């Protein structure tokens, strides 16, 4: 009998420690700065335990019943703490508030446990024995929890299930206590029913843990996530809402299937249709194969080389049934050569010339990507253009990021290229801009390939006209040693979002 009691002590001690570890780990994982998160979580938890210990003096009657309800409360709050924190992070602005509220609530309840239990047991054992045994098992439970958590629980069960499992243990101890202390307990029936209800709730949580994890992640995107993968280079996420499939790379929208044809037709045809003799085409970036789909509409183009960093990206767009249909199986076409390499370094060691080059990189959101928009890069690009060749550069929005756009134009000029800026409207993106760059003068095409959904030859020249709110503004060229573009870009987009 006595040993069974002490096992309960060890179990509730383990539960208490697990909730503290869950809170500290989640806070570090979601907010970073583990030293700060752990310190403040431990601090507020221990303080709350002190509050709980103090409050125990006000519990005077019905000790066992109070103890059991406290166990149930700890089980519920602690068990769902991890799920609640994940969802709070995904859905609310108040993650920190909820974090510390949960930590303090559990701390107060856990602080009440041992004082109450010792008082329940005080008539069964001599005080000396009681203190020694309760504390011994308290520490043993804590030791077991602190070892299990990193070695077994986090890797095998994950954060959500680990917390729920220990919630079940708390509730189990509560149910068990209704039998252990039945002589000190009046109405047992209602308590047992409550215990059973709590256990069912926690069990249901266990069953739905997978859904909870997904819900937390999916909320970062507006629509249903149909594919998500972390590759070595980025996080690839596909979402779907009705017939609209969207691709996000590291949370940045790349295309919407409803209007991507506008973007890709405008990216390729104003340039390539103006080069009737074009045979060799290079695409840098654009691992979705959608630009290549447009290029393959020219029967005279004999070879398309696609250089994209991420092999998982090009593999996905070669094999996924929906995506391969969207790009018309362009990546598996015999005329297309897919190379997975870092574009700047690849271009540096490559010696070929190309008639048409599509430069479709992610926006210059950081200094690493910014290298792909520098005078050094465009000079190198110029060296790979054939005498009459053209390059087209994805250049962010001339409306939302006006200075960034004209900075890219200026950078191309500084690299010794003639520039022909143009823009169009893509509903999912807004106003979007491209720049054609060449060694020799450019004339818009007189004919476009058949089967286009957006562009016709007479529509091309107007693309090169900019209304007043998108006209050129002064901008320095972007250089490797002075990447003004990253600063412009950050500034431009901050203006929009704040």
């Amino acid at each position, binding site marked *: 009998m006595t040993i069974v009691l002490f096992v309960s002590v060890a179990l509730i001690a383990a539960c208490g420690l697990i909730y*503290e570890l869950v809170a500290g780990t989640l806070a570090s994982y979601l907010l970073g700065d*583990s030293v700060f998160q752990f310190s403040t979580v431990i601090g507020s938890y221990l303080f709350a*335990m002190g509050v709980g210990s103090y409050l125990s003096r006000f519990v005077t009657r019905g000790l066992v019943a109070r103890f059991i309800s406290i166990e149930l409360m700890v089980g519920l709050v602690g068990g769902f703490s991890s799920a609640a924190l994940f969802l709070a992070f995904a859905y609310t602005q108040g993650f920190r508030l909820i974090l510390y509220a949960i930590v303090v609530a559990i701390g107060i309840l856990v602080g009440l446990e041992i004082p109450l239990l010792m008082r329940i047991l005080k008539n069964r054992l001599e005080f000396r024995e009681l203190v020694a045994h309760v*504390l011994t098992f308290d520490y043993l439970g804590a030791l077991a929890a602190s070892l299990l958590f990193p070695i077994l629980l986090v890797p095998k069960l994950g954060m959500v299930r680990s917390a729920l499992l220990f919630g079940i243990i708390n509730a189990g101890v509560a149910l068990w206590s209704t039998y252990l202390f039945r002589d000190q307990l009046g109405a047992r029936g209602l308590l047992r029913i409550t215990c059973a209800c709590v256990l069912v709730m926690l069990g249901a949580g266990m069953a739905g843990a997978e859904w909870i994890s997904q819900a937390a992640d999916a909320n970062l995107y507006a629509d249903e996530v149909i594919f998500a993968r972390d590759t*070595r280079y980025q996080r690839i996420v596909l979402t779907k809402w009705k017939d609209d499939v969207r691709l996000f790379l590291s949370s940045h929208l790349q295309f919407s299937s409803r209007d991507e044809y506008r973007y890709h037709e405008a990216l390729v045809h104003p340039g390539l249709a103006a080069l009737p003799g074009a045979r060799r085409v290079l695409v840098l970036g654009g691992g979705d194969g959608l630009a290549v789909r447009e290029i393959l509409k020219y029967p005279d183009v004999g070879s398309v080389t696609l250089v994209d960093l991420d092999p998982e990206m090009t593999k996905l767009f070669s094999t996924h049934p929906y995506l391969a249909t969207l790009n018309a199986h362009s990546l598996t076409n015999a005329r297309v050569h897919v190379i997975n390499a870092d*574009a700047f370094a690849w271009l540096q060691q490559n010696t070929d010339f190309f008639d048409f080059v599509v430069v479709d990189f992610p926006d210059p959101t*950081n200094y690493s990507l910014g*290298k792909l928009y520098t005078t050094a890069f465009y000079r190198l690009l110029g060296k790979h253009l054939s005498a009459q060749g053209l390059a087209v550069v994805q250049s962010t929005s001339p409306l939302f990021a006006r200075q960034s756009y004209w900075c890219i134009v200026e950078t191309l000029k500084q690299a010794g290229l003639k520039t022909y800026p143009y823009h169009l409207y893509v509903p999912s993106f807004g106003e979007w801009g491209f720049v054609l760059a060449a060694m020799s003068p450019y004339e818009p095409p007189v004919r476009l390939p058949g089967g286009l959904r957006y562009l016709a030859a007479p529509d091309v020249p107007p693309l090169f006209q900019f209304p007043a709110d998108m006209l050129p503004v002064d901008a320095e060229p972007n250089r490797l040693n002075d990447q003004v573009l990253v600063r412009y870009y950050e500034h431009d987009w901050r203006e929009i979002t704040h």
Partner: protein
Amino acid sequence: MSSTRRQFLSAALVGLTPKTDRSIAGGFIDDGHQIGHQLRDRAPFAPVKQVMRIPIVIVGGGIAGLSAAWRLDKRGFRDFVLLEMEERAGGNARWGENEISPFPWAAHYVPVPGKKAELVRELFEDLGVLRAGVWEERYLCFSPQERLYVHGRWQEGIEPLTEATTGDREEFARFAARANEFRSTGQFTIPMELGAKPSTLDNLSMDDWLKQEHFTSRYLHWYVNYACRDDYGALARDTSAWAGIHYFASREPDEKGPLTWPEGNGWIARRLLEKLARYVRTGNMVHRIAPEGRKLRVSAGETDYIADGVIFAAPSFLAPYVCEGAPPVRFVYSPWLTANLTLDRLPAERGFETAWDNVIYDSPALGYVVATHQSLRTHIDRSVWTFYWSLAEGSPADNRRLLLEKDWSHWKEAILGDLERAHPDIRQCVSRIDVLRLGHAMARPVVGFLGSDQRRRLADNSGRLIFANSDLSGFSIFEEAQYRGVKAAERALGRC
């Protein structure tokens, strides 16, 4: 009971914060101090087997010696040898390479030279760094150049302005204005010899000068002190105010720099060695230089060279141990420690992006430089960091002793402990740490160095033995080493 339980819980949690040590390989890099100490201890050397007559011998294969060789070769003079004590030439521009990247062992950049630094510009034209007045973009340090870890986060630039008050900012502005005034006097030039005039600024320390000028901002004091530790290996209170001001008042760049390469100045040494390989004899320690009639006899290994002129490009403090009749050289040299850390993954980053030069505020060390920063790649998941530490606190002699006494683990722990402040997960990222101990890394421009008779006597170079090390300028920077080397070569040609 709650207090014991509290302690236990805290202990259990602290134990679970990320600190699973992985084994880290590495050791000391051979720094030549054992060979060097043979000179000091007058160890017996091998008997002579051959005697060669040759007009010019260059002693030392650092930037000064290589620059002397570059000048001789460029003038069409081919009849000389360059003798280097170590197995590889380079001196303070030495470098290494592993499967991730080449990396520097010491000097890692050259500020973009102003118009007055004609010789440096000429060299860079030869090496394709400067073409028709335009600096090659790939050799200019990429953005972002510098960041500082201060008040728990990274900020852009190393002037600690995150929590600076208006008063602090005003002092930074006033300090910059003072530096401009000094620049316009024309006395603070690179090379220093062109402009330097006797100055009362040489009679007090940089720290005293700051106080005299009523600069009180602790951020400004840190910043100036950092500059002195970085360029001279000395605290501001151990640096001549003239030298301290020279650091801020001498540079007139016409482009945002500095110039840098993955292997630091090793890139320049490499290019020079490619051009000059046929003159260079490594593993050849010169142990005696003595007059031989009207010539000089240079003994190195089993060969004696009979030369018309000898360019002594090794650190000048070695001269008394080698050159018969040379007086002791009493320059002060700063001891340094550098380490190369191999990172097979990069630490989690928050705040301002990883820069080329990454400095931690209030650290005794100088921070680290990222060897892969000059890569054209957009995605980098492994790197080499070069950690710099000038042992400026305390006396140079004590610190040299410390360098030799402490084992590798001591320095490994000290380095990781320092980096851990800004990168809590650094221990999980580093697979290897190699440490280089440089007992006499660079000359220290102490108070009075400018007016020192000895410095001026050695720099006079009217004899057959021509001194060329940058320590003749009082401080070891690339431009001074190159200038001294080239000037020594021209003098030597005049003697032949």
